[in-house]
């Protein structure tokens, strides 16, 4: 119990004192995961919409694959991306192993199926007659898609939150492709693991608290946008 208390105190002082190292680590966490989620939105939403609306053979197989991808283990992604990005690997020429860019790629691979899967569900839970009605009113295909996305905006924001929550708390991939290098690729989760193995439980708890505050702040902002029309 005293350890948790010590950790909370340490977290408080780290935040109040704006410990530059910890702040830099927190910023990197935020930057990597936010970029990864933005990229995954670009990939996941169009894929999700396409799979929800198009009709072609094999569609259900692909959707089941996307749904499986929602539970993609980060270590598996990390291992795969590591082997690809190693300097003697197939994508070694990019020279981005052990950089934040590599972490963004890995996290984007983790988040994209989550966003795509929830987009499919969000579009398909709309009344199917809505689509007919929009088309009957003379909307073009693009207008129809945008209107459907607008109707599905609440579950879509939930997809953003799920994707963000998935990647910022992820450790296996960040550790492998980032390497937990001080001042370069150390993020809150990998720093927490390292401090734990160093026996600095207080600092480890402080970092966890910081991580949770960060995740909460981002989710609070997104929730406020999502629930704006329902203030109470």
């Amino acid at each position, binding site marked *: 119990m005293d350890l948790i208390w010590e950790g909370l105190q340490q977290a408080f002082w780290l935040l109040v004192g704006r410990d530059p190292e910890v702040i830099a680590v927190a910023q990197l966490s935020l*930057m990597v995961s936010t970029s990864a989620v*933005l990229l995954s939105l670009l990939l996941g939403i169009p894929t999700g919409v396409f799979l929800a609306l198009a009709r072609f053979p094999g569609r259900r197989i692909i959707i089941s694959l996307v749904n499986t991808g929602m539970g993609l283990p980060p270590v598996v992604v990390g291992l795969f991306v590591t082997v690809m990005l*190693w300097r*003697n690997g197939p994508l070694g020429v990019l020279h981005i192993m052990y950089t934040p860019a590599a972490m963004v790629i890995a996290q984007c691979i983790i988040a994209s199926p989550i966003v795509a899967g929830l987009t499919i569900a969000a579009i398909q839970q709309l009344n199917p007659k809505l689509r007919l009605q929009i088309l009957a009113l003379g909307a073009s295909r693009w*207008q129809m898609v945008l*209107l459907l996305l607008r109707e599905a905006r609440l579950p879509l924001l939930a997809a953003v939150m799920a994707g963000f929550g998935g990647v910022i708390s992820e450790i296996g991939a960040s550790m492998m492709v980032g390497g937990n290098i001080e001042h370069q690729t150390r993020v809150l989760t990998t720093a927490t693991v390292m401090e734990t*193995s160093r*026996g600095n439980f207080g600092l480890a708890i402080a970092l966890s608290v910081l991580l949770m505050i960060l995740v909460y702040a981002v989710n609070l*902002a997104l929730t406020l946008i999502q629930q704006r029309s329902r203030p109470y």
Partner: protein
Amino acid sequence: MAERPPKNLWREEVEAMLTRHLACTMRRTLLPAALGLFLVALLSGCAASPAATATSAPAATPTAAAAAQPANPEVILATTTSTQDSGLLSVLIPLFEQKTGYKVKTIAVGSGQAMTMGERGEADVLLVHAPDSEKKFMAAGHGTERLLVMHNDFVIVGPKDDPAKIKGLKTAKEALTAIANTKSIFITRDDNSGTNQLELKLWKATGIDPKGQAWYQSTGQGMGATLNVAAEKNAYTISDRATYLANQKNVSNLEILLEGDKSLLNIYHVIPVNPAKSDKINAAGGKAFAQFMVDPETQKVIADFGKDKFGQPLFFADAGKTDEEVGG
């Protein structure tokens, strides 16, 4: 059903309505969300860049020593978790970067994985502590040279009440035999790290095969985590002294029960990876790091490291000695 409106009459009005609808969506939902996310990214980006420049500043400052910027400044160092977890590398790496202008990427893994990375040409230099594997590594031509850097020692830790009665025994072999005979719980790291390799070697010397025994339990994790498991289970384990000292306050029910046996020496070597392995290896950087590690100034830093925090040094500087002189 209402009558279908004549298309040509209604079309414009419907389109106008749709456009308004869409504009409204953009303005009220998508834009704020996207803006919010971008803002967060931007803010963290802006705030992070001064920190990044601040950290890279010392290396970039054109001091006399760092004036000659190396052609390929990035060096990948694959090392063991113990050098990182003890905090030694946090002291040495900035020194090296400042002196030479290289930028080190430290990948802290077990000695086994570090050497595999070297074999595959994924690291430029290794700092490891698994002598038998290192000799094989050198024999296979994976490294250019193997320099003795420092040593410390392993200790056998266990519960204070010592059910296997190993306290007072002289050798690790006797201690492990006693643990096996009393079927006291022993925690093994089982991760092919330097510590794990030494432990297996000791078991081999006893002639006992502990694999599969109920009292022989595997964590597959690093030293710190394994010590905590041992503490929870009131079990025996083998740890390097540095990690044990760093974790002592969290594993207060464990104490050092056997130390000082010659077979418990923990010797660290630095090995630049043979550039013939892959044209991507930074041979100059690897060599520079190896030379830095055996430099008298660095050796003094190593010898003093930990004295202020633990009252005793965590490593003994050994550059220039032979393995036999250290006792390995």
